[in-house]
């Protein structure tokens, strides 16, 4: 690829924002490698967060899940699983990092705003304004079985609840006036009279009445992230979020189409089109040469999709136990078993298994792929592969054409998988002027170039 003239692009001054996603549940983390460390040891989290901070990343992200993944009542045992509560983990990281944003994935379906808003505000204060909240929802009773609330929301209501939840949370975060706390010990009282307002919210989802217990942080509110790709999810983000995650960071045209769609929705929601940062998730494999990078990527994919994992992934499509089959043989000859989606199953259900199976068969036949090769080839295209210089050119083009505002990077190795990105790719991006050379702000909101909340 030739370098683009930095001025012959829509956004010559674009800056890439990087986040790191510490994956807790997946088969994409290569846990079998001798260099792979613990997924739960506090040292792993610290190492990744501090490396990201050394690389001037905007944010460190944690995911959330409220039930262990399973298929047919059997817990997935090939995947990495088991992760900490994100607010507890991030509060610990707040003590050992200084600038990087700390983003908690927290569910609006199985939390209550009075409690969660306070926890998020606590993280925001403990980190001096570096908190983010990735707002997620749940609509299945399967997850609800872990909660006293049970499975009480249908699909349509989950975004309604999320939106009401955000409204209440914002009211709680705004509950204290600036200067609500007395200046000195001689004051009449610790809080200035009339400076703390009650929050009363009665809507379809909530009936809450409370006195907020925390002031605003240095950045005002935690930064809101959202990751829904459905039209409802995109509209929700356009109305409410500061950052949108997506899976549209692989192919330039796809990324640009997504970004333009999101900007359209932003305008429709009455917000300025630079009010939302677009950060697709990606995996990055770096080599000294293109060939070395390709070989490494091939190795990563084979480690991620082991023979057993290939059978498990195909088994979820066919909805049958394929564990005795030959992963290097053809796809199953049988038709997939179709079960009605009652909401009582885990997140791994496939919406239309017959169509998926037919597509897989056709592609496997056309390319002469085995079952495992099919799973590898048709699995989500997860990332970018190349030399530091080549990747920097690609990312620069993505950013300067407005296809992305940055990437949320999932390292395939914990805890050292970010090292070559920070040591090799970041300097190339800095050389192209598309990446910061030092933190200029202290809060996550400032890193992302977002306006303070009204």
């Amino acid at each position, binding site marked *: 690829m030739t370098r683009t003239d930095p001025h012959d692009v829509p956004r010559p001054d674009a800056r890439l924002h990087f986040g790191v996603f510490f994956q807790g549940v997946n088969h994409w983390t290569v*846990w*079998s490698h001798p260099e792979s460390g613990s997924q*739960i040891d*506090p040292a792993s*989290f610290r190492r990744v967060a501090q490396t990201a901070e050394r690389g001037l990343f905007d944010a460190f992200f944690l995911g959330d*899940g409220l039930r*262990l993944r399973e298929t047919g009542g*059997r*817990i*997935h*045992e*090939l*995947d990495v*699983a*088991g*992760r*900490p*509560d994100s*607010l507890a*983990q991030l*509060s*610990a990281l*707040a*003590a*050992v990092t200084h600038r990087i944003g700390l983003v908690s994935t927290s569910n609006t379906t*199985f*939390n209550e705003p*009075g*409690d969660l808003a*306070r*926890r998020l505000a*606590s993280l925001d*204060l*403990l980190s*001096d304004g570096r908190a983010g909240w990735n707002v997620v929802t749940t609509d299945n009773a399967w997850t609800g*079985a*872990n*909660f*006293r*609330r049970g499975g009480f929301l249908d699909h349509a209501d989950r975004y309604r609840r999320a939106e009401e939840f955000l409204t209440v949370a914002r009211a709680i975060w705004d509950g204290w006036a600036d200067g609500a*706390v007395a*200046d*000195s*010990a001689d004051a*009449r*009282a*610790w*809080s200035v009279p009339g400076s*703390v307002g009650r929050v009363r919210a009665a809507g379809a989802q909530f*009936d*809450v009445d*409370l*006195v907020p*217990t*925390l*002031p605003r942080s240095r950045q005002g509110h935690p930064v809101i992230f959202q990751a829904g790709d459905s039209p409802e999810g995109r509209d929700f983000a356009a109305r409410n979020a500061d950052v949108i995650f997506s899976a549209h960071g692989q192919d330039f045209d796809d990324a640009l189409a997504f970004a333009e769609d999101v900007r359209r929705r932003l305008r429709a929601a009455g917000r300025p089109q630079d009010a939302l940062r677009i950060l697709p998730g990606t995996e990055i494999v770096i080599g000294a040469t293109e060939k070395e990078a390709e070989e490494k990527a091939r190795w990563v994919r084979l480690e991620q999709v*082991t*023979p*057993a*994992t290939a059978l498990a992934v195909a088994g979820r499509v066919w909805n049958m136990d394929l564990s005795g089959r030959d992963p290097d043989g053809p796809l199953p000859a049988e038709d997939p078993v179709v079960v009605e989606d009652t909401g009582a199953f885990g997140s791994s259900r496939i919406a239309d298994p017959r169509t998926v199976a037919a597509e897989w068969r056709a592609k496997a036949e056309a390319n002469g792929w085995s079952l495992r090769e099919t799973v590898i080839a048709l699995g989500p295209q997860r990332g970018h592969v190349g030399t530091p210089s080549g990747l920097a050119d690609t990312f620069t083009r993505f950013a300067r054409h407005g296809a992305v505002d940055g990437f949320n990077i999932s390292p395939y190795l914990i805890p050292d998988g970010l090292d070559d990105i920070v040591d090799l790719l970041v300097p190339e991006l800095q050389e192209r002027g598309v990446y910061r050379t030092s933190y200029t702000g202290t809060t996550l909101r400032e890193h992302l170039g977002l306006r303070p909340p009204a």
Partner: protein
Amino acid sequence: MPHPALHLAVEIDGDGAHPAAWRRAAHRPGELLTPRRVAKVAAVAENSGFTLVTLDDGILPPASAAAGGPAGRLGAVERAAFVAASTSVLGVAPVVATTYAEPFHVSTRLASLDHVSSGRAGWVVGVEEGPDAARAWGRPPVEGASALRREALDGLRVVRDLWDSWEDDAVIRSVATSRYLDRGRLHPIDFTGETYSVKGPAIVPRPPQGRPVVLAPAGLVPPELVDVALVEGTSPALLGEAAAASGAPLAFAEIEVALDTPDEPAAERIGDLERYAAWEAAPGQPSGRLRYTGSAAGLADLLEELSDVVDGVRLHPLVLDEDLAVLSRLVLPELFVRRVAARPLPGTTLRTALGLPRPESRFTTAPPATRTTPGASATPAAPATPATPTASAASAASAASAASAKGILSTVAPEGNR
């Protein structure tokens, strides 16, 4: 044994136990809700040699707000995690109530606190009383003492079972079979209580301590489900009776302290604050706690006396910035000299520091003898002689394993610690 060991805990919420303590704090009022302040108090507590700090909490403004005191409070679990990462040997025990909170979340948060602290987490079981708390949660009120106890008990049972729902070695990382987990070592808890049910298993691996140390006010929940009963009483004799009656493995006396400082006698310091508000345990309720007012030497004597009848104390200092300094410079060093108490050792878990056994998961499938326990620091040290508390902890651990094999939910009290 030369002397029974007295375990030392201190409550560090707000600016101190007195609702007007903020007026004597060494910082500006607003500084209370900052990371610098949280880290500083924790550092003093750790450097002083306390075994653990507790952190009060609730969804409502702190009680001091009603008396013109601090109206703000950072979440206790978040504060505790922050403290854990800024200290190395100090135990951290937030107050968490399961009156309205989801026990699944509570279990995950406390297990996570144990992970981030490498086995230094405790939990002070709390209750959120009154209609204001229900309205703040937006939930139907839990009313009456028996309903409040039921929610506390059900919550505690769910939390404990979820901690046990991953066996210690559930993460097997078997490259040969591509299996990260052994699903046979993960267990749904299938809890069904009066008001809700929880499926399980947990989403976080078993905590380093097996179960974080559970502290609860005596009488709130059955003593066999707690590690440390917090007992009240206005004299050493009453505290001794309460400790003996608590039925828990360990009993800590709740003691409010106001100490003479180099500049000012304790009584004058209290008098100064009483101009603004009364020092009560809770608004409108007289304290049932022992209150010590006076010199550091007198407190050391009192604590030495108490060490014969209780296993530990939880101190509630009048003003943290003043009393913690006196505790640090004069009281704790004296207790260490007298061998009434000991500093926690680096690299030990809170359970080990308290002489408590590491509980086996109640779902454990393999016989204990054939199992390996991950994390050497999480396991009580091998007994030196049968008479030491550590030895009794180890024997209690095997007794606990035997009990869990029969499906009995209990830890066994270490002998000789009282």
